[in-house]
């Protein structure tokens, strides 16, 4: 049977292999421990490679994993080994760029955790139950941003007031520690 291209999981891990946000769409890893084992193995296997300029690819347990790193975040997308690698790569690129847009260029773990709602919405807009919904980063980010909690300022504007407000927040936090 010819099947629709499908994604098995999308993982966003930090620079030590811990979860930031993950979504599984396949029964290959039924328990949480099997998921964690997979994440650990895939992280260890790819740790030493340099996947910052171009997306890299590896095969692992009858799956292909395409991945890219930015700062202290590791992005992974997994597909079956019969899948078209370029399709999976497009999904990764869409996710990667959309996150970049949503985090306004500050793609690091802290930023991701502080905007976890955006990341989760983003994942929701890319793949539904394994089927690809959208691969264009602008469209994905647009769908997320229009639902986001702070739906005031549009994505492309970085107003001074916003920057000041964020800075004030940081200062307050550090003073209170």
């Amino acid at each position, binding site marked *: *049977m*010819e*099947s*629709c*291209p499908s994604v098995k999981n999308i993982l966003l891990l930090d620079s030590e292999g811990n*979860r930031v*946000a*993950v979504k599984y769409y396949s029964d290959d890893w039924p328990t*949480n421990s099997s*998921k*964690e084992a997979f994440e650990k193995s895939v992280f260890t296997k790819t740790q030493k*490679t*340099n996947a910052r300029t*171009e*997306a*890299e*690819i*590896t*095969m692992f347990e009858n799956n292909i994993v*395409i991945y890219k790193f930015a700062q202290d975040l590791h992005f992974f997308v997994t597909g079956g080994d019969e899948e*078209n*690698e*370029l*399709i999976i*790569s*497009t999904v990764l690129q869409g996710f990667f760029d959309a996150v970049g847009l949503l985090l306004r260029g*500050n793609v690091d773990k*802290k930023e991701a*955790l*502080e905007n*976890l*709602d955006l990341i*989760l*919405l983003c994942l*929701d807009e890319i793949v*539904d*139950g394994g*089927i*690809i*919904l*959208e*691969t264009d980063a602008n469209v994905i980010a647009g*769908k997320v941003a*229009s*639902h*986001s*909690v*702070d*739906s005031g300022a549009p994505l492309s504007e970085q107003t001074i007031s916003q*920057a000041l407000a*964020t*800075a004030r927040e*940081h200062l307050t*936090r*550090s003073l209170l*520690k």
Partner: protein
Amino acid sequence: MSQFVKKDDDRDEEAEYSPFLGIEKGAVLQEARVFNDPQLDSRKCSQVITKLLYLLNQGETFTKVEATEVFFSVTKLFQSKDIGLRRMVYLIIKELSPSSDEVIIVTSSLMKDMNSKTDVYRANAIRVLCRITDGTLLTQIERYLKQAIVDKNPVVASAALVSGIHLLQTNPEIVKRWSNEVQEAVQSRAALVQFHALALLHQIRQNDRLAVSKLVTSLTRGTVRSPLAQCLLIRYTSQVIRESSMNNQSGDRPFYDYLEGCLRHKAEMVIFEAARAITELNGVTSRELTPAITVLQLFLSSSKPVLRFAAVRTLNKVAMTHPMAVTNCNIDMESLISDQNRSIATLAITTLLKTGNESGVDRLMKQITNFMSDIADEFKIVVVDAIRSLCLKFPLKYRSLMNFLSNILREEGGFEYKKSIVDSIVILIRDIPDAKESGLLHLCEFIEDCEFTYLSTQILHFLGVEGPKTSDPSKYIRYIYNRVILENATVRASAVSTLAKFGAVVDSLKPRVFVLLRRCLYDNDDEVRDRATLYLNTLGGDGSVVETDKDVKNFLFGSLETPLVNLETSLKNYEPTEEPFDISSVPKEVKSQPLTEKKSAGKKPTALGAPPAAPTSTVDAYEKLLSSIPEFSTFGQLFKSSPPVELTEAETEYAVNVVKHIFDKHVVFQYNCTNTIPEQLLEN
């Protein structure tokens, strides 16, 4: 944020900072009470939902009670008009997977959203509903879903179509009723709507060959609006080609032109999908392959690892069946040997090993030598297997290939890797007669420095089998004997057996072997001494050059027919009686249950029927028997008597087994002849 300079200690603290630091399920569930407030603070509620989602994502589980409570509180949030909050509500409902009786609570709210004027609500409400629905609810909302499929808003249409694909697994009859709407959606101008509609329509119609064929025919002539849809179409086209009459030998394959045309598409995923599809056609000809391979060859030199990988993996598969078609790519492949991505490098090497011709083998081996030290064991094993296949393909090249294998055997490596090399050398020795001598020598050199006992013993055993058959077996003796001096007990025992084999089979070597075996009698280890003694005594005690008795050879080196497990159990159960232990009574089938003792007891009427006697009675019996025979009386104390060994098959007219009695300087063979057929009488 970057325009503010942070102090050092700020930075340190921030390294550990996480908005979820110290988060705890109980506390968050408490916080979730805020959902019940009459005045909803949508921002706060969204934050709490985010925390709940974070917990779930990290692997935290909610008990049934907790999940139900959260779910019920969440449903209250439908009162809020805040878009952001509603979106989070959708997310968490999907994560909580409510049961069918809980679902009812939200059904009306979701259905309202499904028909709302706000487009963002409609699409997502559809997805949530379809995720949590069951058959009865589905029939209620079916009408709306059909409308949604052909909705002007592409996001809504896609949501309905994708939900349809999922629902097809659980409620196929219902979804099949939407064929007309789905068919209409295939004509949509919106790129992804067409993709989703095509996927759904194909799944609905997949068992109807004619329908699929019509679908493919119309779309290959029509407009396909997205690369993803194009890839789908390529897959369906391949299916149609495969299922169309195979006896269409005349002229071109149907739809081949379409596939070939896709090789010029502007999207790389389409080009690759088409190339791959062509390479996987049944009985594909070189002419058909050529354009696909050309395109894949271009990918080999791409700057993107994904492209290089995809291309080399496909070419690797093609090389298995059409190596000649891939040889044009050899130059590009060779440059991939040094690729940063080790998967790509390994695939390149194994492809070259398949497509290489005889003249290029030496050059290829040189290139691979440097490569091997860079890659991990799992890749190395793949390469070793490919080298073995290459050697079997070009047996005349065995010298350089065996040298290569021997060299890598001596380098660093794990057990599995070295085992695969040894196995490969053994296969080459067996299949290429000319390679035997050098192969055996390579193995001898390896065991001089081998860290794995298992491999040493295997090789020694193999030497024992093959060595005596060579033209000059004596040259292996030194290697084997050195193992007796230098290695651990297991290897020493194995070496003793091997030496004995040489002595048994090659009569001219018997004297030398005997000298060496005698030295082994003084070994520290029991097993080594026992074996040495056994061989010395059975092979003919005086060390002269005589032919070894065939029976003895079988006894020493033939394989034991009885499974070891059963023999062990039977021996344990054997109650010593007047009758000697009968090895033929041991069941020959291996039983997998651990209760073998009970079972084999049932099968042995001889041993168990007799009354229990003192354990030493057999020995005494033998002693009495032997000392009563005058010729044996000078032998001294009986050292040990072995269990009887069957020398004839179980079904013969008379059963002969032998018991070995071992004295200080003599071994007495007691042949027990038992008449199995009552009518006959055995005469001397």
